C-alpha cells in the first residue's frame, strides 16, 4: 500500500510531501515520545502522533518513517512544515483519533 492509497482510504489530508505519495507503507507505529518512537518505529511505518513540531520531522527522517499522520487534526507548526518540505517528509492530517486510525490501518493490512 502506498501513502497515497492510505490517504485516500482513510480520508487523510496532505499537509506536505504529496510528491512522495508513491512511497510504500509497510506498517504502523503510534506514539508521542520521540525517543521511544525513534527506537521502536520501523522503516516504512506510518507514524500516528499528535506531536507536530520540528523535532518530529527529525525523528521521521532518521527513523525512515513513510509518513507522519497527525491524528485528531493536531497542529503542525510552521517551522516543522518548512523542515518537512526540505526533507521531503510526508505529513498527513486525520480528523479521527489515534486508536481509530490505527484500527483502520490494521484492517487494511488484514
Amino acid at each position, binding site marked *: 500500500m502506498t501513502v497515497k492509497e492510505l490517504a485516500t482510504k482513510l480520508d487523510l489530508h496532505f499537509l506536505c510531501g504529496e510528491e512522495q505519495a508513491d512511497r510504500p507503507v509497510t506498517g504502523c507505529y503510534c506514539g508521542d*515520545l*520521540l*525517543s*521511544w518512537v*525513534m*527506537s521502536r518505529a520501523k522503516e516504512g511505518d506510518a507514524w500516528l502522533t499528535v506531536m507536530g513540531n520540528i523535532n*518530529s520531522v*527529525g525523528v521521521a527522517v*532518521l527513523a525512515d518513517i513513510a509518513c507522519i499522520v497527525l491524528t485528531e487534526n493536531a497542529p503542525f507548526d510552521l517551522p516543522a512544515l518548512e523542515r518537512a518540505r526540505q526533507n521531503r517528509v510526508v505529513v498527513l492530517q486525520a480528523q479521527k483519533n489515534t486508536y481509530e486510525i490505527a484500527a483502520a490501518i490494521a484492517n487494511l493490512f488484514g
Partner: protein
Amino acid sequence: MSILKLHYDIDGSDFTRAGEASGKVKRVLKKLGLDAEAIRNVSIAMYEGEINMVIHAGGGEIDVEISSELVTIVLTDHGPGIEDVSLAMKEGYSTATDNIRSLGFGAGMGLPNIKKYANEVAIDTKVGVGTTITIKIYVPDCSAEL
C-alpha cells in the same frame, strides 16, 4: 584504508536545530553506501547524544570518524556532567524539565537508546566539568569506498 572525519558544533540555544547534525551524518552514510542497519544504528545513537547535549549541556561538539569497518562518534560537552551514570542509563529516568517533555522529549530513553544501538559506549563524565561520550558502531560487509 582511508577515514572520513566530520565535525559539528552543536548550538545549545536553538532547540529547533537539534538533530540536524545527525541528519547530515545519515545523508553522508547513505551516499557512501554503508550497511542500512549500521546507518540506522548510527542515526539513532547520534541523535540521542545530540539531543541530550542540547537539553542538558547547552550544546557542545560532535566528531564523527567513518571507516569501512567502523563509525566512531565522540560527543563532547562542558555541561553539568552526569551525577549518577548508572541511574541515567535506566530506561524512564530523566531530569528533563516539563517544557522539554512537552516537546516530546524526556522519556528517559536517551542513554539507554545509545547503549542499545551502539556496539561500544564509553561515558567519561565529571560533575561541573562536562561529559564525553564515545560511541562505536561496527559496519558489517561494507561496500563503501572511502
